[in-house]
């Protein structure tokens, strides 16, 4: 691409300080929000910070209050229990196993054709699930994002490439696939307990974030036939926990060092 314009040695854009600054203001200890003290030749900030010493407007408080109360009720609703504290870990973690299992479960419950594999990312799991009751609010903290579940129809060789992505990433939450990491490559890859069949296509459930270029598994970014059931990852987690009651995921060697 050819630029017609040459580089100017004169800055095209300059601070306006010299010409305009004399009209800029600073509050000189006055009590009004209006800076009615002295204006100085100074750049102001152009904002006011909404700090906690500001009074809360009663009408706005009253407007929000019933929603807040309902939210507190909804968010404190217990939907299940964790048998032990679930944390994320690499190459495999119990929290990640729960998340990936939940994706397969919730997808199947929508009536869609089940997926062979579910993959999400540790980065999207924001807090552990502590042992004991699990509230809706905690699942919101676990998964604050509105990521949607997507299903990619992937040829067998792409599944192999994806397994290598997983190995290079040091492991991310998966279900339906297992592999060993050997020198940052995947080995002993099994899908549904069986070796990958050349020529077959596989259904991969993942998040729109990972499929649209996020994360560190580039194989997910190619243009595959895609289904977008109307299912948020968070709602998948909630559905799975509610249906399971007490969740007790274990390390099963889904992704393991060799």
């Amino acid at each position, binding site marked *: 691409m050819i630029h017609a314009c040459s580089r100017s040695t004169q800055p095209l854009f300059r601070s306006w300080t010299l010409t305009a600054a004399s009209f800029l203001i600073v509050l000189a200890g006055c009590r009004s*929000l209006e800076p009615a003290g002295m*204006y100085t030749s100074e750049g102001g900030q*152009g904002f006011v910070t909404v700090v906690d010493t500001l009074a809360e407007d009663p009408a706005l408080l009253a407007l*929000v209050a019933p929603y807040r109360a309902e939210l507190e009720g909804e968010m404190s609703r217990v939907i299940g229990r964790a048998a032990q504290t679930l944390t994320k870990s690499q190459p495999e973690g119990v929290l990640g196993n729960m998340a990936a299992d939940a994706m397969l479960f919730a997808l199947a419950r929508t009536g869609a054709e089940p997926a062979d594999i579910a993959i999400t990312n540790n980065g999207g799991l924001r807090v552990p699930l502590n042992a004991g009751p699990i509230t809706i609010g905690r699942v919101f903290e676990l998964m604050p994002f509105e990521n949607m579940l997507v299903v990619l129809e992937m040829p067998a060789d792409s599944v192999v490439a994806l397994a290598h992505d997983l190995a290079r990433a040091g492991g991310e939450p998966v279900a339906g696939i297992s592999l060993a990491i050997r020198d940052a490559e995947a080995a002993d890859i099994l899908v549904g307990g069986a070796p990958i069949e050349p020529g077959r296509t596989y259904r991969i459930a993942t998040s729109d974030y990972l499929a649209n270029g996020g994360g560190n598994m580039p194989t997910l970014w190619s243009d595959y036939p895609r289904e977008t059931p109307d299912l948020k990852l968070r709602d998948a987690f909630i559905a799975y926990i509610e249906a399971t009651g007490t969740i007790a995921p274990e390390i099963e060697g889904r992704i393991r060092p060799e």
Partner: protein
Amino acid sequence: MPHITNVTPWSRREFLGRSAAAAAGALLVPAGVMAASEKRLVILHTNDTHSRMDPFPMDGGRNEGLAGVARRQTLIDRIRAEHRNVLLLDSGDVFQGTPYFNVFKGEVELKAMHAMRYDVATLGNHDFDNGVDGLVDMLHHAPDLKWVSANYEVAESRLERHVEPHVILERGGIRIGIFGLGIAFDGLVLPDLHEGVSYNDPILAARRQADALREAGCDLVVCLSHLGYRYRGEDRPDDVSLVAEVPGIDVVLGGHTHTFLDAPVAVERPAAAGVGADRPPALINQVGFAGIRLGRLDFIFDGRGRLTRWYAAHYNVDDRYA
């Protein structure tokens, strides 16, 4: 793309240095130096408020205790009590970020904006998080709020009746043209969620809007942008390239990148452009996210309605305002 050599915010360091000079009295001028014929327009603005109705919880986080719509209302009311010509604007991403949105789908956010008497807003990518229908179905909660977007083509969608390329408002005889710009959907908004709404080039749209608003006799041309402040080394439109390429814009109130600018950024208009050559530099401002800050810019017009200068407020809110 023009080559941008320097875009200078007033840095905090510069600010402190000059404050010291001010304290010495050297640069002080009398307060409120406005001729009787002059008019002041106060623009208040937010961006990326992201469903933050309540202040951030006191959990040790960086923003604990900050923000909250009830406090923002106090601030806005106070400023409105002191000035006749006030506009309250938002640059998008009103939705998403707290369970208020997940559970109530935007109802609380829009009711609060209605109560605060927001005048105009543009659409952010997250405002499509529940799809076009999910957005349109909420808009009645803020019936007086006007939505502008000049580069989202909405004619084939239910947004058609709710979104205009621009609006022209009048405050104290000052005509203010306000148009909106939205970010490309790719990778941000799933196709199903913006069905019927398509993205057009924002720079081209902005040129058309700036020209049209000038021709319509606007004294100030404001762009509500959800493009993002600046993408260094990337060939995509942002607020900095926007003001560089469209000299007819007086002020860009930005969003999307959640940028906390230390001060508004002033960008001199290209001298050759003709349009705007007699006007103060264009301004870009953005106030982070979540309503932690309320942006405020004051514009001064002479007796003929010509923009002569602006200033950026600087004051701390403390318990004197409780």
